[in-house]
């Protein structure tokens, strides 16, 4: 066992002194510098907008099941001028806002904003982020972008309506005039700035503030996932930022970066395809930005609830790093139909398919972690296993879209929609729920109801799979995405049944989320009080109080071992339990109290 010099411990204590907890409402709840409070702020904001995005999804599903019929409840509130029904232009704004809100203002804040903030300092044994002030600024910049989203929803000529990808020329003034689109592009830029601030903080914090003994290969896998995500964010969100800036210049100041053809001036316009390059140089890493935290969290949870160390921890870390590197080199597979040379298309296809190698490695590690474990089917474990299932479906359908031969047929069909919903909406969402159920006791000091959680899980999983399988089927049969009324086409008429079944499943999915909301709020108020380590796991955050004090740790822990210390016979002999904390010293012999109890 290596010895940590006491100077190092002293240096960490000195670098991160204990600050007094602020007492005023403003500094405690609004401009809080505490990463745990900022994490909770992100969680509330993200969950709120998750509901908004979910309601928008319900309106899309209604339109596909009952095209042109008045929408119950929502229609009478928001669409009164159209008699409660969704018109074609409104339909455009609904799917656009659904996509943008879900990606940038729901999943990103919940997975990265909330759990990144809450977990990173705790899991590495730090008292706070490296730059607490920047962290608070990051949240309030995000809040500003939410104001822009709301302004967009009530913009003249409706909200943004150029699709979540915001492709020009549709997204320029030529295609979508009106302030709604402008506000939304500005919102994406501002939320990008917020993400970069957060990313700088996360990357620096993990480099500088790891507790003594917390080597890179002892970091919990959730921390690895979040840290790699932060690196991708810092590198690639700026590219989206510059695309948004140029689009704003086009919309507000009359430049012509993305306007071409008849709408451009004679002296040579810009290039709409340029936007696609910029968008996907960012966009493909973004796919992994949304799934890497989920991978990390699930890797940890599978080990915790199988009561076994994660299988080949280093392999999982290397695979995640490999995915990060590869993710920067595959963006062209979104653009096979833009007139690439076939050579470029084939190169992108090859690189894309190579990603399945590290992805398979992760999968095998997860399966081998669960294999022969003493599985505890708690709610977080169910959601982790569910994530494996939906992510497996999403990954396998991705192969068809990565290969040019099949993508040319499937491009822009509902198959694509089904595929990326299975990865981003199903896998990331299910992993977020796993994380919420798992860390709820640490965040709020109370436990959630397990029975309601399991009911929530089964309805959610079955419905998610039904909804998105329906999309895969419809797409494979030729239904293009973003169609206002697919049944105008004779060859799609017979798909009404499939789409209706998927829509009913979607409505049931929404219903299941109300079980979650009820459980969440009830547990916040009246849940059973949580002890410090209710799940009996070994990472650092479970060895401080629930919820942790303002300064996280009275003494900065000295880390002695990796994050998944389960089923060690020596630990069982000396401590009488199947796990030992990362910073817990192993006593020389079994204490007499435990010996007599055993």
């Amino acid at each position, binding site marked *: 066992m290596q*010895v940590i*010099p*006491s*100077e*190092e411990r002293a*240096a960490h204590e*000195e*670098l991160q002194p204990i600050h007094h907890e602020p007492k005023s409402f403003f500094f405690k709840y609004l401009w809080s510098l505490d990463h745990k409070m900022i994490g909770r702020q992100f969680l509330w904001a993200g969950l709120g907008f998750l509901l908004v995005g979910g309601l928008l999804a319900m309106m899309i599903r209604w339109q596909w099941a009952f095209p042109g019929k008045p929408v119950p409840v929502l229609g009478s509130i928001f669409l009164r001028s159209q008699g409660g029904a969704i018109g074609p232009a409104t339909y455009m704004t609904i799917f656009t806002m659904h996509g943008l809100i879900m990606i940038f203002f729901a999943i990103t804040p919940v997975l990265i904003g909330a759990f990144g903030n809450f977990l990173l300092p705790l899991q590495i044994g730090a008292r706070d982020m*490296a*730059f607490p002030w*920047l962290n608070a600024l990051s949240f309030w910049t995000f809040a500003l972008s939410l104001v822009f989203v709301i302004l967009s929803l009530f913009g003249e000529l409706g909200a943004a309506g150029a699709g979540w990808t915001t492709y020009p020329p549709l997204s320029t003034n030529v295609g979508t005039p009106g302030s709604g689109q402008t506000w939304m592009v500005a919102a994406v830029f501002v939320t990008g700035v917020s993400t*970069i601030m957060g*990313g*700088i*903080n996360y*990357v*620096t914090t993990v*480099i*500088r*503030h790891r507790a003594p003994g917390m080597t890179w290969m002892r970091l919990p896998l959730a921390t690895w996932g979040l840290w790699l995500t932060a690196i991708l964010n*810092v*590198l*690639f*969100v*700026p*590219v989206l*930022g*510059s*695309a948004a*800036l*140029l689009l704003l*210049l*086009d919309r507000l*100041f*009359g*430049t*012509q*970066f993305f306007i071409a053809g008849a709408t*451009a*001036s*004679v*002296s*040579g*316009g*810009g*290039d709409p395809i*340029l936007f696609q*390059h*910029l968008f996907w*140089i960012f966009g493909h890493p973004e796919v992994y930005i949304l799934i890497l935290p989920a991978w990390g969290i699930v890797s940890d949870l599978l080990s915790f609830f199988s009561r076994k160390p994660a299988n080949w921890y280093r392999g999982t870390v290397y695979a995640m790093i490999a995915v990060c590197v590869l993710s920067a080199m595959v963006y062209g597979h979104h653009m096979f139909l833009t007139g690439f040379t076939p050579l470029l298309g084939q190169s992108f296809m090859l690189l894309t398919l190579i990603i399945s190698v590290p992805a398979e490695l992760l999968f095998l590690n997860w399966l081998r972690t669960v294999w022969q474990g003493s599985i505890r089917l708690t709610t977080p474990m169910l959601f982790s296993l569910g994530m494996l299932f939906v992510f497996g479906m999403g990954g396998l359908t991705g192969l068809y879209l990565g290969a040019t031969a099949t993508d040319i047929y499937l491009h822009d069909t509902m198959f694509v929609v089904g595929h990326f919903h299975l990865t981003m909406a199903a896998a990331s969402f299910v992993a977020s729920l796993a994380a919420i159920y798992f860390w709820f006791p640490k965040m709020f000091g109370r436990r959630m109801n397990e029975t309601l959680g399991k009911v929530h899980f089964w309805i959610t999983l079955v419905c998610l799979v039904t909804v998105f399988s329906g999309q895969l089927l419809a797409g494979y049969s030729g239904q293009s995405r973003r169609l206002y009324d697919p049944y105008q086409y004779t060859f799609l008429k017979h798909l009404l049944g499939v789409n209706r079944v998927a829509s009913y499943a979607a409505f049931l999915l929404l219903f299941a989320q109300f079980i979650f909301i009820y459980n969440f709020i009830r547990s916040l108020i009246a849940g059973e009080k949580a002890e410090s380590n209710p799940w009996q796991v070994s990472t650092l955050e479970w060895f401080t109080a629930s919820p942790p004090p303002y300064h996280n740790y009275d003494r900065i822990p000295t880390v002695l071992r990796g994050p998944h210390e389960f089923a060690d016979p020596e630990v069982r002999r000396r401590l009488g339990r199947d796990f030992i904390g990362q910073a817990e010293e192993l006593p020389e012999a079994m204490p007499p109290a435990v010996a007599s109890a055993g």
Partner: protein
Amino acid sequence: MIGAEAMSVIRYRPRGAREQATAWIGMVIFLGSWAMMFAALFFSYGMLRARLPVWPPPGTPPLPRLLPGINTLIIGLSSVAMQRGLSAARRAQAAAVLPAIAAGFLLGLAFLSLQFVLWTGLWRAGLRPEGGAYPSVFYGLTAIHAIHVAVGLGGLGWLLTRAFFHAFGPARNLGLRLWTGYWHFVGAVWLLMYLTVFLI
């Protein structure tokens, strides 16, 4: 194998130094991130230019080279001044810090003013943003860069007031160091912009 004492001497510097190193790492990560933003802008320029058969398109006024060339020198000198201010602070020559920062600030101001002259001149010559890709690249890239210069000038102005009260010394120069780093970054981006947008 080195003993614990020796290790502590090598690895553990006083607290101020450790915090400063953390802040510096954060600044480097930020600049790396922002470099990607500018890289995307240069990528856009390259792609738009590659698409057009003639650059600049016929009938558009060519961009001047002399004025932005002088401006490149000015922002370069400004960077040098800031660096001298920083090394003066490190050598505890408090009297030399203030004039260096003042020079850096004034040269930065001169840069922005000359940019303004450049824009108005070309505007009067008939180059408008709505004139296609060529003026879009010129106005878009220089304007986005100028916003960064303006932010830097804000920082330099803040340093100036602090230097007036002799705030910088060998151990206390973090703000100066971070803003000087940012200022070098903005200067380097301008150099690249001058080479690509104006010269070639």
